[in-house]
């Protein structure tokens, strides 16, 4: 009798785990907005870091990224790095990012990023984090990003 209860409880936990991991892994394939190659830069607890990915809008209508949220950081904002004269670089918040129909918008180093401010734990290479991106039309999209030092697929050609 006891073992049956233990088994049932274990089964229940396996089920829960299975269902949550599935919902986090898979983006809705019917969504017109697809997020490719998400990765986040290494950071120590309490530091800031940046999340990168490619947004693809396969639809006929334009869409807009309006916000990002995650439990991994105290504050999450959409930012862009910009260049000024004399090799000066700065960074600022952007309130939204337009994604025209049938196009891709790249969040990449030295450019657009999701800014994770005051991360709640160390992010080491290989760790994974969860972020939700909200689009005006496509709604909320869950993204699972892997921690790296350099971009996925070595796309860092200058």
């Amino acid at each position, binding site marked *: 009798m006891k073992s049956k209860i233990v088994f049932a409880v274990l089964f229940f936990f396996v089920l829960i785990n299975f269902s949550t991991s599935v919902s986090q892994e898979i983006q809705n394939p019917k969504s017109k907005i697809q997020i490719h190659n998400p990765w986040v*830069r290494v950071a*120590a607890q309490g*530091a800031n*870091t940046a999340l990168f990915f490619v947004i693809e809008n396969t639809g006929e209508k334009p869409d807009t990224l309006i916000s990002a949220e995650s439990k991994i950081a105290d504050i999450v904002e959409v*930012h862009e790095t910009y260049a000024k004269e004399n*090799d*000066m670089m700065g*960074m600022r918040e952007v309130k939204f990012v337009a994604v025209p129909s049938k196009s891709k918008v790249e969040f990449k*180093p*030295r450019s657009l990023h999701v800014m994770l401010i005051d991360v709640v734990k160390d992010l080491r290479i290989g760790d994974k984090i969860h972020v939700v991106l909200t689009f005006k039309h496509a709604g909320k999209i869950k993204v699972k990003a892997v921690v790296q030092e350099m971009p996925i697929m070595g796309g860092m050609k200058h």
Partner: protein
Amino acid sequence: MISFYDKILQTISYFLVVKKSISGYRVFFNKLACSTMKKIIFITIGIFVFFACGEKFEVIEDFGKEKYKLINQNGAEVIFPDLTKGKTAIVGYIFTNCPDICPLTTNNMRLIQERLKKEKVEGVNFVSISFDPENDKPDVLKKFAEIRNLDLSNWTFLTGQKLVIDSVIKKAGVVAVPGDSTIYPDGRKIYYFVHTDRIQLVDDEGRVRKNYPGSKINVDEIVGDIKSLVD
């Protein structure tokens, strides 16, 4: 090399002759093609290249006579640039609240360090100087390096009193001004510096010899420069 050279001369004379049809040009370039003329031109180019290379390593700024009291990632007091005297140094300027440019700069320094290790080039030190000493206390710098698994055997992170840091970066030609900011729920405010994106090549006497855009350097170029300065 010679044939390539001949081809250039031929091309130039062809265009001039075809365009102007003046026989004088033809005579002039025929003369050029003769070997003494070639020698002279080669020497001229040689001199030009020599001076161009010399210029690459002009002294941009001199830390040599300075003694800045700074603090390393272990909280120990060090004197800059004394800690790198006698060695060539790669110096980067960062603040750790920076999520993009400064990690790129730091990672580029790591790539240089790894290349030098692979090619067995010795006598090079690495220094990362924070221009945000109010936030970048020694333990913050230490964690910044540790989380990235940086090899600190020849790499020092520096912070210090704001006044001292300010004079270091001023001398280095690095500008860092607080720009946009984010306010935490608890009211704390952090600034994102608008700053010079910079890695510097400093020689064994503490003189700045070349500047690079830190976050987008060409590793081959900088490794080549280090080798020619170390030799």
